[in-house]
């Protein structure tokens, strides 16, 4: 078990979760955006609570991928359940750090947790196709696409339900997809697991 904790760099993952959730919860409502042609209303506004949890999900897949050596695949341990637990623990640590910050700021903590659940769920879901090595690109691409196409025209236009990473937590409909991803992703992660790389 000690070896497992070391190969998965649990300490560094916990550190990333703490730093990421602090930053994302406290700075979350700040956003960056893009100009549109000739001074019209800007587009592609991305709040930081959509971006900073990506750092956690990228760190998580990096450590999972680095530990996923051929020798690890041949152990008798319930490998998939252990990997799932590591991801779930990252989400849990983030939630434990973020949610108390609701006392300080109204927006940010809940969105951070929701987005991380969505991102990790998406990674779980796509790992059988992409492998641990490439799965981290999926949530980033998802945020990229929802930032550009997820809003009705105008910077503060309404956010589509599918573009949940950008939305404030005010409405329950933005929880539908991330929680679905979390549940379905868990099932996939616990049964199929990541693709093996051809040349490991």
């Amino acid at each position, binding site marked *: 078990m000690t070896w497992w904790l070391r190969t998965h760099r649990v300490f560094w993952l916990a550190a990333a979760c703490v730093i990421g959730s602090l930053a994302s919860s406290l700075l979350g409502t700040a*956003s*960056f*955006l*893009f*100009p*549109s*042609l*000739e*001074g*019209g209303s*800007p*587009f*592609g506004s*991305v709040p930081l609570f959509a*971006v900073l949890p*990506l750092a956690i999900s*990228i*760190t998580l*897949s*990096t450590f*999972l*991928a*680095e530990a996923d050596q051929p020798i690890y695949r041949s152990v008798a341990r319930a490998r998939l359940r252990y990997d799932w637990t590591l991801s779930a623990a990252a989400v849990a640590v983030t939630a434990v750090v973020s949610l108390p910050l609701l006392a300080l700021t109204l927006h940010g903590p809940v969105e951070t947790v929701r987005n991380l659940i969505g991102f990790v769920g998406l990674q779980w879901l796509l790992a059988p196709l992409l492998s*641990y*090595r*490439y*799965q*981290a*690109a999926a*949530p*980033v*691409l998802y945020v*990229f696409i929802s*930032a*550009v*196409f997820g809003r009705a*025209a105008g910077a503060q236009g309404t956010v589509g339900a599918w573009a949940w990473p950008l939305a404030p937590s005010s409405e329950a409909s933005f929880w539908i997809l991330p929680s679905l991803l979390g549940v379905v992703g868990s099932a996939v992660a616990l049964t199929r697991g990541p693709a093996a790389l051809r040349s490991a």
Partner: protein
Amino acid sequence: MRPIIPWRSRSAFLLFFPAAAFVVLYGVSYVDLTTISGYWTAVGAGSAIFLFISCALASVSGAIEGARARRGKLRRIGVSRPYTHVLFVQLWPSVLVAGIVQGLAFLMLAQDTWGAPGGVPILVPVAFAAIIFFHTAIGYALGRLLPLPAGIPVALLLSYSWLGFTWSVNYFPLRYLAGLALSGCCRVDAQLDHHATLAALVFNLGAGIAVLLLTAMTLPRLTRPITLLAPVAGVGLLAVSAVVGLTVAQSLGPYPSQPRDQAQLQCDDGQPSICLYPELDYRNDPAVTIRQAAANLENIGVPVPPRIIASGQASTPDTLSVALRPMMSPSAIIYSFSTAFLQPRLVNNCPGTGNADLKARTLAAATIINWLIIRSSAGIVDQPPSTRYPEGAAPAQQLLTLSDAAQLDWYTHNLAALTDCSLTPTSPPSS
């Protein structure tokens, strides 16, 4: 045999298809061409909007090449070729394909502009190339330095964040380093300020080379000072290009434009003389409509300045500045022409007179605009263009029931009253 275009072995070529689809989808759903069509400078600079797509491609494919070099242990094997050659072989597809995507974006924006006189300032595509090169270098460095699973997503994230973040910052010179702010250029009466393109060019080229220097093949070691040369030179170049770029962009505001050179105006010798930029009359001539509208007003005695120019600046007593863009409809031209009489300011907020007075002045201004539009559009369009000042419609109709002389008297007094605090605006008298 290796194909001439390495489709399968180089990621950039495969990424071209989603990137091109992205450009087309984005262009079709969000870009409004009316403000830029007909003016090559605006089309060229405006295509900066699409940089976030081409730079994403450059950065991601750079990261994939970098990850490949990392897996191949480029630092540890001996390579006899010069490092520039190694880099060129690795990175040319990324820069080339991202450039093609940017060119595609330009073609999308240019679809209504073919045939217009003039051209794109040459520095604009050069600056775009430099920006793409910088993003390729960043992606490559990330692919080389980060673990394989992190390289690609971080490259995509960083590329997008750098472009978006800099645009959200209110320190304007920083925006010009990223280059996206070029898209704020230009209406036809403005031209691109070359400080903007120059800043983007200097910074991105310098920083790109600097980042590549930092990925040099030899591991730096203190015991061998020669190996420290590349990292020190890289950091130095990065700092210098940032400082130079910021200095060049120092004079710029939120928009990279400056008033256009008036020497490019082409005046005719009619009465009044109408001066237009060559882009304005290559397809349909707004001068005909303007002359007719001016004649309509002069017939009832409204004084029209002897010189009418295409400009967004304020009108003066002897020059009427009409805001025009290429391919305007007659009704839009009449609207611009009529509102030009009320520049530079619609109304003055006179000190110490309170809200009611300002309201009366605003209503008078709205009435004047509606009245000018109706009178000047006679015989040109069947339906006068609708205004942004609907509250003036009813008083303007009231004014139209009077005799021409009475209308003119009311107009003369109230136009002066808008900005002269010693006069009081009046409502149109009932006949």
